[in-house]
Every structure is written in C-alpha cells, then in structure tokens.
C-alpha cells in the first residue's frame, strides 16, 4: 500500500483471527490491530481527525500552540502531527504515567506539564482547563468533548470492522475518552443494530481515584450511554493475565489496556458458549506493549506485576 505521507497512512488496520484463543469455530475472537497506526496506537485516528477539523474551522494555523490533557497516546499522536505541521504542542500528563510515554512525547518535540498523580487523568483535565483560560490564544482540541474524535471511528473504525467481518456480533473496545465506542457504537446502531457494543474500562489503584469530592468526578462530554450495551471494569490483575495469554497463545504483543479489553471480550465469548449462540467478537487492540515494558507487566509473577501497577495510570 502506498501513501503520500505518514499522516495519510492512518487507519485501514488489519483484523486478525485468534484461532487458539477462540472457544470454538462458532464463537470466534478477532483482533483489530490499531497498533499498526503511524505512531502505534488507535489515538492516531482521533488526533489526526481533530487537527484536520480544527484546520478546516480556521482555528489552527502554522505556529499555533495546541494544548491537550492526555495520559499519553493522544499526546504522542498529536506530537507527531504537530511536528509535521509546525504547531507547538503542550501536553498535560499525570505524573504517574510510564517513562516511555514521556520520552516519546519529548522525542517528537512536545512540552510536558505534569499534573498530580492523585486523581489521574481527571487532574490532567482540570489543570489543562485552567491553562486554557490563562492562554486564550492556545487551541485545546479537548479529546473528551471533540466530536471529531468519535467521528473518526464512525467513518473509519466502524466501517472497516463491518467490511472485514460482516458476520460481526460484538464489538469490544476501551472506554477512556469514549471516542472509539461512541463512533463505532453510532455506526453499528445505524447500520447493524443487532451488534452488541461492549465497553471495558481500566480499574486503577486507589491513588488514581484521588481524595477529591465524589461530586467532582469526570464523565467525558462525548459519552452517550445509549450507544453501548454493557460496560465492565477490569483491574490490573485480569488485564496482565490476558496480555500474557495473548502473547502465549497468539503471539500478539499488546499494551496493558488491551488486556482489559480482551478480558471483557472473553466474558462475552463465555456467555455465547453457555447460551449455545454463534458469536464473532471483534475487539480493539489499542496499542502494542512497547510503551509499558518499564512497568514490569511482562515479566515475573502476575502478583508482582499487579503490585507494580498499583498507583500507575496503566491504560
């Protein structure tokens, strides 16, 4: 396949079958390899779509400063695009995110502002919103509320899944900004409403949930619960266990959040087997494991890995 530039090569990712992990020929699992995007994560779709929309709306011109709260992948995608398009990028990143993510951001020239570990990404959002007020000329693309984020999946990820797997019965993806599931969910609600849309969200250690008032929690503005059918909270132990299973059985090397998504996908598979129903379950591989090697999730016992992830924003 040939493209005019790296930016043009986003999307059209492979869908691969997982014959050894699938329970039977009637209940099959399929992995959508979003790690094959330009900077190695599903966030390239949203980041490039948000930039393109902001340029179209006249908000972004060369030399502009982009501001974004991110736990890593969106920032990395924006950093690559910003370098190619001559924007300055300031990312607000929780301080308890992996070193690899920081290095990648710096490598593409992003400036990093650290937000407090307690509170995780909620704090990054709060800090970024404060900075946006102080710098009225900066452009905050704001992945949590930017319709272009979900739109990228409505026009890209969703149709790609349907084209490669017309018999699809379930789509399982991670819930962070909610962009993937909102776009894919809306696409299937409109075209094939029988497809079940399933969300997996990471359950972190206590530190990440912070000590702030419970009324100061955060729900992304993009989130519309009517576009999903069920939602599961997956802790680091199950996520790590599944990441290793995927490596052992299918040879796929994925990031920790994908382990959480696979855990939810296998739950749907088990239900289908029990009900004696056919199922073709597609789940989204958000990124590869490279950025998380230093977390220790890939070696030693699962107990040790779980302990090392305590207090980390691992998804």
């Amino acid at each position, binding site marked *: 396949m040939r493209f005019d530039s790296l930016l043009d090569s986003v999307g059209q990712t492979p869908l691969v079958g997982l014959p050894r992990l699938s329970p039977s020929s009637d209940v099959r699992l399929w992995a959508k390899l979003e790690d094959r995007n330009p900077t190695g994560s599903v966030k390239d779709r949203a980041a490039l779509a948000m930039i393109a929309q902001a340029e179209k709306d006249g908000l972004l011109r060369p030399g502009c400063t982009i501001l974004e709260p991110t736990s890593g992948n969106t920032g990395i995608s924006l950093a690559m695009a910003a370098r190619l398009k001559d924007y300055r990028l300031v990312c607000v990143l929780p301080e308890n995110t992996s070193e690899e993510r920081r290095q990648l951001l710096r490598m593409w020239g992003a400036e990093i502002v650290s937000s407090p570990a307690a509170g995780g990404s909620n704090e990054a959002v709060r800090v970024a919103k404060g900075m946006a007020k102080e710098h009225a000329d900066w452009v905050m693309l704001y992945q949590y509320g930017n319709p272009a984020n979900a739109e990228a999946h409505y026009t890209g990820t969703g149709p790609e899944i349907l084209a490669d797997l017309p018999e699809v019965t379930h789509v399982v993806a*991670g819930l962070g900004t909610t962009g993937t599931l909102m776009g894919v969910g809306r696409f299937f609600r409109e075209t094939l409403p029988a497809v079940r849309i399933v969300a997996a969200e990471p359950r972190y250690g*206590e530190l990440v*949930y*912070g000590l*702030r008032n419970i009324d100061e*929690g955060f729900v992304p503005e993009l989130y519309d619960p009517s576009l999903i059918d*069920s939602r*599961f909270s997956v802790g680091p132990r199950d996520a790590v266990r599944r990441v290793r299973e995927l490596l052992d059985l299918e040879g796929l090397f994925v990031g920790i959040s994908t382990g959480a998504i696979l855990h939810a996908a296998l739950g749907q598979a088990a239900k289908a087997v029990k009900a004696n129903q056919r199922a073709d379950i597609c789940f989204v591989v958000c990124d590869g494991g490279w950025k998380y090697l230093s977390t220790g999730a890939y070696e030693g016992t699962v107990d040790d890995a779980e302990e090392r992830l305590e207090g980390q924003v691992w998804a």
Partner: protein
Amino acid sequence: MAVEVKVPTILRTYTGGDKAVPGSGGTLGEVFDDLDSRHPGIKERVVDGGDLRRFVNVYVNDEDVRFTGGLDTSLSDGDTVVILPAVAGG
C-alpha cells in the same frame, strides 16, 4: 443476599476506614438502604433521588449497574459491589 461492598477512599469516613463492608439485600437499592442503617449518610453520597449520582459508578461483579437495571439490579449471595468515582482516560 449477603454481598461485599468495596468502598472508595473518599467514602471511608462513613465506614470507620474500612475498605470493604458486608451488605445485604435482594437488589442494589436494598443493599444501599442496609448500608445506610449501619453507616448513616453513605447512601446519600451515592444515590440522589431514585438514581445513582452522575459522577459515581457502581459495579456488580465488575459490570456497570447502569446497564443491568441500576438500583433495581438483582444480587446473588457472594456478589461483589464496587463503588468508584468516575475518572477519565485517554
């Protein structure tokens, strides 16, 4: 039904610092009533009128109860109820 309820840090002032407390009830709503009888005030922090508060998520055996009937979600012996503040990702 006897269930275990995991309480987030921010609500442990109601449970004397306990991370998990026992609860009983056939539905999630009944469990919160039961909890409130021993830990007065905790229910009001999680439930507003007949619904969960906007920034609170509750899971039964890891599934978000907003998709299983909310406060009417039925429970079985040994179920685990987790209360968590809503957080961002991305």
